[in-house]
């Protein structure tokens, strides 16, 4: 570390102080610690490969110190970088301790220098990229584009399975119909209720609920079951609404209903 003293002195030089102060004016102008470091490194006016990382660390720490002094809020990552650079500085200044683990100060410094050089390189090529001839600015595309007419030929296809299933679908339409017929054999409570509301007006006397079976529903067992259940449910609804009364003499004896007598 032969440069140490030299750069220690540099850090205190007036021009760098001035530069550091100038930087403080606009912390937001930097995109982060690395950006700031890159800017600071320019004050060394040397090839980035030959940069003194120690001097740079000093500059950075001085910058942060100054910012604190001026009560400028520094984002956490600036402070993290400051802490890291302080650590790096101590490693660079102290003679290497063979018992200590971890990378040497030189290794860390070399990596930081690499990062700075790489960032600078990317900035340089960004500029070169943007300076290239650009489409729509320097060179141009065809103004009168001819629409490529897409002629779509549609080829229809079907498999034997499609064919057979299609045929099966038609031929078994009657087999599907039971779903419709099932419904025909079902009397919903709403239907029963609708029907009974009309009929109940005439039921002044107790009548067997079975006598409310609609015509044609009594012979088919499926229909009879459905109609009976619907009628019974409808009766309960009507009783709940206070329209009728229900009675059953004993278990399994006929259920009778009648219109609720007017009080």
């Amino acid at each position, binding site marked *: 570390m032969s440069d140490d003293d030299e750069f220690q002195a540099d850090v205190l030089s007036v021009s760098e102080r001035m530069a550091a102060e100038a930087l403080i004016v606009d912390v937001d102008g930097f995109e982060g610690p690395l950006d700031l470091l890159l800017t600071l490194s320019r004050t060394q006016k040397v090839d980035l490969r030959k940069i003194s990382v120690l001097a740079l660390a000093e500059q950075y720490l001085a910058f942060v110190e100054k910012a604190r002094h001026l009560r400028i809020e520094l984002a956490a990552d600036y402070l993290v970088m400051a802490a890291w650079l302080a650590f790096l500085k101590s490693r660079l200044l102290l003679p290497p301790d063979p018992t200590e683990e971890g990378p040497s100060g030189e290794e860390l410094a070399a990596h930081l220098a690499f990062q700075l050089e790489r960032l600078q390189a990317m900035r340089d090529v960004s500029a070169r990229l943007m300076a290239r001839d650009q489409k729509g600015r320097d060179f141009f595309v065809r103004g009168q584009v001819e629409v490529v007419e897409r002629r779509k030929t549609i080829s229809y*296809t079907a498999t034997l399975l*499609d064919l057979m299933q*299609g*045929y099966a679908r038609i031929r078994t339409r009657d087999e599907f119909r039971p779903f419709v017929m099932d419904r025909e054999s079902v009397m919903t409570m709403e239907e029963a209720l609708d029907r009974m509301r009309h009929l109940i007006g005439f039921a002044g006397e107790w009548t067997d609920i079975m006598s409310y079976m609609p015509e044609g529903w009594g012979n088919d067992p499926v229909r009879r079951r459905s109609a009976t259940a619907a009628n019974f449910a409808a009766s309960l609804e009507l009783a709940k609404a206070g329209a009728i009364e229900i009675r059953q003499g004993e278990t399994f004896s006929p259920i009778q209903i009648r219109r609720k007598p007017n009080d």
Partner: protein
Amino acid sequence: MTEEHDAVEQEESLFEAPPMGEQERMVEAILFASAEPVTVAELTARMPHGSDPAEALVHLRKRYEGRGVRVVRVGDAWAIRTAPDLGYLMQKETVETRKLSRAAIETLAIIAYHQPVTRAEIEEIRGVSVSRGTIDQLIEMEWIRFGRRRMSPGRPVTFVVTQGFLDHFGLESARDLPGLKELRAAGLLESRPPPAMGGEEDEDEDDEGQSELFEE
């Protein structure tokens, strides 16, 4: 306005105009990049003073003679256009494979199973009318064709499937099509036998009476 313009032009043309080859390049680039045909006046306005786009256009037009694109006059303006004989390149053929519609499949199936079959019979079996488009499509695909006329009142045409149909579906003949029982065994039908159709056998093609079974 014009006088003024002329005056400016004369003044400026004291500077040397670009060589004609350069002017030709300029016209070429402008015509290429413009969305609309460009008039000579506009070319003049855009090119360096002293340029003669009209002459440059003559050269350029000649240069593109017989090429894939041409310099053409559109009204009093100029444009670069595709050579007319290459217009066909501006089409892009794409083949899209689509599944045949359900109506077409059903119609085709009925024809295959019942051929020769009349349109009225197809409609009877399907329970809905068969659109002309469906029949046309199947004919166009060369999967069905007209068969003999039916010897019945009105002598209606019948439809039969074609060799192309058999080839496509890998069938030796339409008789190889699996019957209802086999379809059922293959799980293609609901296994529940319909009450009304208890003992039904596979149909013979010309069993006209059968269609009544399928009436709604």
